[in-house]
């Protein structure tokens, strides 16, 4: 146990002492390692130990939290007293706290815990990635290779008696290649990550495959012209292409926005909000997936949450606190970057489920459009639903055939509109990894989809 159970109970009692109706203690100790290589030399090596305690209390629809990076009892109890002092000034109403420990099934087998491997051995992976990136072409002038691993131990206890814990191990490798020709520089990247150990390189992509893929993308962009801006029919490839759903709709289905009516999808459960082709799911239970969790950061077991079923809005992603306002149970969606952030509803692994259209039919159906092979990131204003995202590898489609590469494209639109404009959905669903930023910090999430076709998409270019 990260801290003594009697101290947890005292902290909960202190937080409840002025009349809060619920209190929670979150304890974290994480070791985050990262190393990077540029110019074929080790550039940086870092180890960060993140540890501390976050305490929250609710009174009705008010939430108060405090955190400390110290594990000593005085600091923890002082944080709990701050919570009690800020939430109300009455007397205790909550019943005595009786903790009952719950053990969770761990569905994520870890073959090689990264923090147990000497740094020297990890550096070898980077040399392999770097060599492959440079071997792709003489035009590759730089490769920035990195390897990051996280070993996160959390404990959650609350005034309803929950006491549970989890250990979360993640590994991510990345290569960022720069190709240069005639004074012009272009970039490509590849960054697979999983909730697994260093077996990532055996089971997902080898260092050589990662380096080669980043350089391939940079070289495609080096030869690409700019796209003319305008409105196009767009085919968006699987994998990280799923960022389109994440940005355009996913954030607007989080209780963080929905609870306050700050979402274009608030109050619309049971309504048709998307084309019948669209079934969208947030699933935190996929073994070894980047965004998976045994339990969320409030201790609730994660689950497979069907958000949209054949175009009909079925559910939101809900955390405990916002669930109170919405009259809904938590869906195991509460997440926080660390103990220092207040958790809120977030995505885990979110994707558009496989459909029935063949990839070749989707491309063949486009007379003049854009095929987005790789997407960059994006962002959304959940209030208005306006989203944007960048395309990192794209090709023109003319008369049903994929043609010349183009660069510098971005896609913009409105979430409610694009959901209706998805009119073909392919069969091969794949995911891509990202770090999602929001009010509770930066967290690992998977996005995913099969190849999809979207009509009438505004494409920014030059």
């Amino acid at each position, binding site marked *: 146990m990260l801290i003594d159970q009697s101290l947890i109970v005292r902290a909960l009692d202190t937080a409840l002492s002025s009349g809060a109706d619920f209190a929670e203690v979150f304890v974290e100790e994480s070791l985050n390692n990262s190393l990077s290589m540029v110019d074929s030399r080790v550039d940086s090596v870092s180890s960060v*130990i993140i540890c501390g305690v976050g305490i929250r209390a609710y009174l009705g629809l008010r939430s108060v939290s405090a955190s400390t990076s110290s594990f000593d009892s005085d600091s923890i109890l002082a944080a709990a007293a701050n919570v009690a002092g800020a939430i109300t000034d009455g007397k205790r109403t909550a019943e005595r706290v009786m903790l009952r420990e719950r053990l969770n099934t761990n569905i994520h087998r870890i073959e090689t815990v990264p923090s147990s491997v000497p740094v020297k051995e990890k550096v070898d992976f980077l040399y392999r990635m770097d060599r492959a990136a440079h071997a792709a072409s003489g035009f590759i002038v730089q490769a920035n290779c990195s390897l990051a691993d996280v070993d996160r131990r959390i404990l959650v206890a609350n005034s309803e008696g929950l006491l549970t814990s989890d250990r979360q191990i993640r590994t991510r490798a990345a290569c960022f290649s720069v190709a240069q020709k005639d004074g012009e520089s272009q970039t490509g990247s590849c960054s697979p990550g999983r909730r697994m150990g260093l077996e990532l390189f055996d089971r997902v992509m080898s260092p050589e495959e990662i380096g080669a893929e980043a350089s391939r993308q940079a070289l495609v962009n080096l030869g690409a012209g700019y796209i003319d801006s305008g409105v196009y029919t767009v085919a968006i490839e699987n994998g990280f292409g799923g960022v389109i759903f994440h940005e355009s709709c996913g954030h607007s289905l989080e209780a963080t926005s929905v609870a306050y009516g700050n979402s274009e999808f608030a109050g619309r459960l049971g309504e048709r909000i998307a084309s019948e082709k669209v079934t969208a799911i947030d699933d935190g239970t996929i073994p070894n997936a980047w965004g998976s969790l045994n339990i969320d950061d409030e201790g609730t077991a994660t689950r497979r949450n069907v958000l949209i079923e054949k175009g009909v809005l079925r559910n939101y992603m809900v955390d405990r606190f916002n669930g109170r306002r919405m009259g809904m149970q938590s869906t195991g969606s509460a997440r926080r970057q660390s103990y220092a952030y207040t958790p809120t509803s977030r995505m885990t692994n979110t994707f558009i489920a496989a459909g029935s259209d063949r990839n070749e039919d989707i491309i063949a159906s486009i007379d003049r459009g854009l095929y987005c092979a790789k997407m960059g990131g994006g962002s959304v204003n959940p209030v208005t639903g306006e989203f944007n995202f960048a395309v990192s590898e794209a090709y023109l489609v003319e008369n049903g055939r994929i043609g010349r590469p183009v660069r510098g494209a971005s896609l913009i639109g409105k979430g409610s509109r694009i959901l209706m404009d998805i009119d073909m959905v392919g069969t091969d669903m794949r995911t891509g990894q990202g770090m999602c930023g929001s009010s509770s910090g930066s967290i690992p999430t998977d996005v995913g989809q099969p190849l999809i076709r979207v009509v009438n998409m505004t494409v920014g270019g030059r």
Partner: protein
Amino acid sequence: MDQKEIAELVRQMSAELGITDWEITCTASASVSAGMMNDELVDFSSSRDCDLTVRVIMDGREGSATGERLDEQTVRRLVSLALENSVVRPSEPECPPYVMEAGKTYPEKRGREGHSASVSQIIACLERTQKALFASDHRVAEGTGSDAACVECSTFVENSRGLSLSQSWKSSYIDSSVVVKSDGEVRSGYVAVEGDIAHSDTLRAVDRAISRLGAGTPASGRYPVAFSPECMTQVLSAFWPAFSGKSAALSLSPYGGRTGEQIASQVLTLIDDPLYPDYPAQAVFDGDCMPVYTKAVIEDGVLRTLLYNRQWAMKAGCESTGNGITTSSGSSICPYSFYIKPSDLSLDGLLGMMNSGIYVTGMKGFHAGANSVSGDFSIESSGFLVENGRLGAPADGFTVAGNFYDMLRNVSAVADDLDFQVTLSPFRTGSPSVLVSMLSIAGKQ
């Protein structure tokens, strides 16, 4: 453990382990923040955090590690991790690692102390702000919220060469996100203010949201484009790495070896100022414990210097510009108050010069839509049409696309309305409104 006890433990361990030099950097911060939605106080939080970075040098190699607990067990673990990390770092005879000797002269901070705010002041300020927002216009709707926070931060450094330094700052901010609804149309506006929150108002967020009502999408094409201060600061935040000496050395910027060249329009001067007057989060020493100073990075369009920490300055054969920043993996490079120098031209005067085009006041998605290596950007934007030199109808649903490096050469005017981002940290970007001769707009066909 306090700083002296930590330093003593690291000193003892270094002697036992044969570590040549060591340095500890300890940053302690305390913050209080609260959020109000409509008329409810929905969130309140306070935190007390520490960051301890231990840097060690052994056999000509440097390693570091960072932790958040200041107890003996953690400090011992950090020294071990730092030592393990040093083993894989390449030995660099051209810039051997070092820790700063004592005896340097450091500048004084310029201007006011920052503003702190108590819990009750923060809550009172939020209640007053929310009331004022809702009272200002009947179209202000549910979902309108404000957040306020006060942060205090102090940094101590101590090393094996007898150096002992400290600096601290405190500041407060308030921001408001206003939602307005009219005839089924929903718009939002945002304003953040740093400083004396008890005497700040964010009513401009209401004006901003209302000014968006009825926005239409402009036709695609090439237009003269002016960026508001808020937008140009975002552009600078996305592209400042182009001015890092490290980026230049690694072919990640086009500016390597180009000091003295005209790289931008003559009307453009870009300054990096760690001591911007009256900014509370001024720094007097950098992550390498070098004294800081104010410098023009671009002066009248000419590249005067890139930004360096000690390591990358030595590799480039020049002096550090005092832009080192301590990270968990050692020193890196970062600007301070990094801003475009304003002129004496008013915004009206700038729009008059433009005559017709688009004044961009909202941009989103720089983290994905801007590539600091190629300079390309394509960003979702909103703003106003400019007709006959005056602001006209609101516009949204379009992207502005171009290339940052080309754009710097095509700046035709800067205005006098300098404003900075609110970051509550030593790094922030600032800019007045900036007019660019021609950029691509993707909107309606």
